[in-house]
């Protein structure tokens, strides 16, 4: 049973084809890099996986369920099983790092006791335990991205989608974030990393799916960035 299954998925905007007949599977606990130039459709593919966008053609399955058919509460549940790390962070400016992470638990209906127990643990995992009371503007870009990862992790997801998570970071912070994603993967969570950073992909030495002109041109275990 695959965790993710894209079956002949195409996506077009105003008649302009972005993704063309995409088919691939991803297993539980796998680490996959999705590579390609900017604008090739990596973000669109990730957005379709959390149903922020719907495919124009084809079907997307998560744990064998067609996500286009999910109703309101089921969709909320899907999004709790898929944590998302956004390039632009999407943190709430008027809440501290602790509150931003707690926010994901609040909207899922967790109790205050659970929040007080789980949030410090996750902040410790991303090495932000000392910055829990800091607001986003008081954090560095790397720290903000680690807060986002903590928020994505807090609901113990089965899959983490990371959309260019290092796009706004310097080399040191970039590697800290990548190491953190590897660590999360080693703890059992599948990771789908969308990036156009050649060095990261080649150093990771994991499965690589390469996109060009809206199509998958290569899908290799222990692949390289060859575009």
């Amino acid at each position, binding site marked *: 049973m695959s965790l993710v299954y894209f079956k002949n998925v195409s996506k077009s905007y105003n008649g302009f084809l972005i993704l063309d007949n995409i088919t691939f599977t991803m297993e539980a606990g796998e680490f996959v890099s999705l590579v390609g130039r900017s604008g090739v459709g990596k973000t669109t593919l990730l957005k379709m996986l*959390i149903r*922020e966008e719907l495919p124009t053609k084809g079907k997307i399955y998560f744990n064998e369920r067609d996500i286009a058919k999910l109703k*309101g*509460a089921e969709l*909320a*549940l*899907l*999004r*709790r099983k898929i944590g*998302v790390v956004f390039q632009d962070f*999407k943190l*709430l400016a*008027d809440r501290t790092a602790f509150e931003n992470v707690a*926010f*994901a638990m*609040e*909207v*899922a*209906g*967790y*109790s*205050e006791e659970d929040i007080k127990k789980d949030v410090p643990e996750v902040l410790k995992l991303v090495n932000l335990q000392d910055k829990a009371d800091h607001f986003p503007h008081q954090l560095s870009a790397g720290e903000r991205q680690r807060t986002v990862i903590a*928020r994505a992790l807090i*609901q113990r997801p089965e899959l983490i989608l990371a959309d260019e998570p290092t796009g706004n970071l310097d080399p040191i912070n970039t590697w800290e974030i990548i190491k953190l994603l590897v660590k999360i993967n080693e703890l059992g969570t599948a990771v789908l990393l969308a990036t156009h950073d050649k060095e990261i992909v080649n150093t990771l030495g994991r499965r690589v799916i390469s996109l060009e002109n809206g199509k998958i041109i290569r899908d290799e275990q222990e692949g390289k960035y060859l575009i």
Partner: protein
Amino acid sequence: MIANLKRIIQTAWKGLTRNKWLSVACITMMVLSLIIFTSILLFNYAANTLIRTLQDKMDISIYFKAEIPEEDILKIRDELLGNELIAKIDYVSKDEALAAFKEKSKYNPTIQKALEVLGDNPLTASLNIKAKSTADYSKIVEDINNSAFKDKLETINLTENQKIVSQVDRLAKAVKIGSGVAILLLAFLSFIISFNTIRMAIYSLKEEIEIMKLVGGSNWLIRGPFLLEGLLQGLIASFITTLIISLVILSFGAKIENFLPGIGLVSYFWSHFWFLFMLQTVFGLVLGLVSSFWALNHYLKV
């Protein structure tokens, strides 16, 4: 469940106090809407009371020739009571008519003197007829004109009444339709005003709503605080509106009574205070709830 409820209440209160100026704008718009709503209720009462007063004053008076004996008049009265359009008939004898006339003109020495000079009672006996419905007066007059006792009558006081009857009827219908249309129209306008103000407030939080959705917040959990905030705004607006209208009634009650004598608008307001407050609060709550619900729907499509 309790954790969710507590969180919804806390978030709603935070929302209300966080965007102070937007909350003030929303509540102000709702207060305006509620003032219009309550004013229409009061206007409707005043118009209906005025119409009822006019309708009560309406009747047909038929005056008999002086030589017609009382027993004949009473027979005619009994005959007329058989007409199903007629609610009530009062017989006024010559003596009663004179007594009433004297009483009415007791401060007018000229009339008093004229009556003394005449010596005899110049007034005639009459029947005052009240119809069951104001719309039937014309038909009753027609029936009387076609009756066998028509030649025993001196006059039928109908011309003036007929005009009033049709005017009051038209007024009653116009008020009924007009106030219904006004309530619907103003309720719609109030809704549009409040809806847009609340939508502005929610627009400023669209990023927060989007993030809530993307991290797995269910629609109802996201909606809850906004709906409660809308309800709270409606409730606060209702309290403020009641305060404003009460102050206006307290300050200008005497002037209102002078302007609309016999309507009893001020006493109606105080005797129906809780009823009006309840209606207005329900309107405010529905306004807040529906506006928030609709304004939010757009952002929950993520």
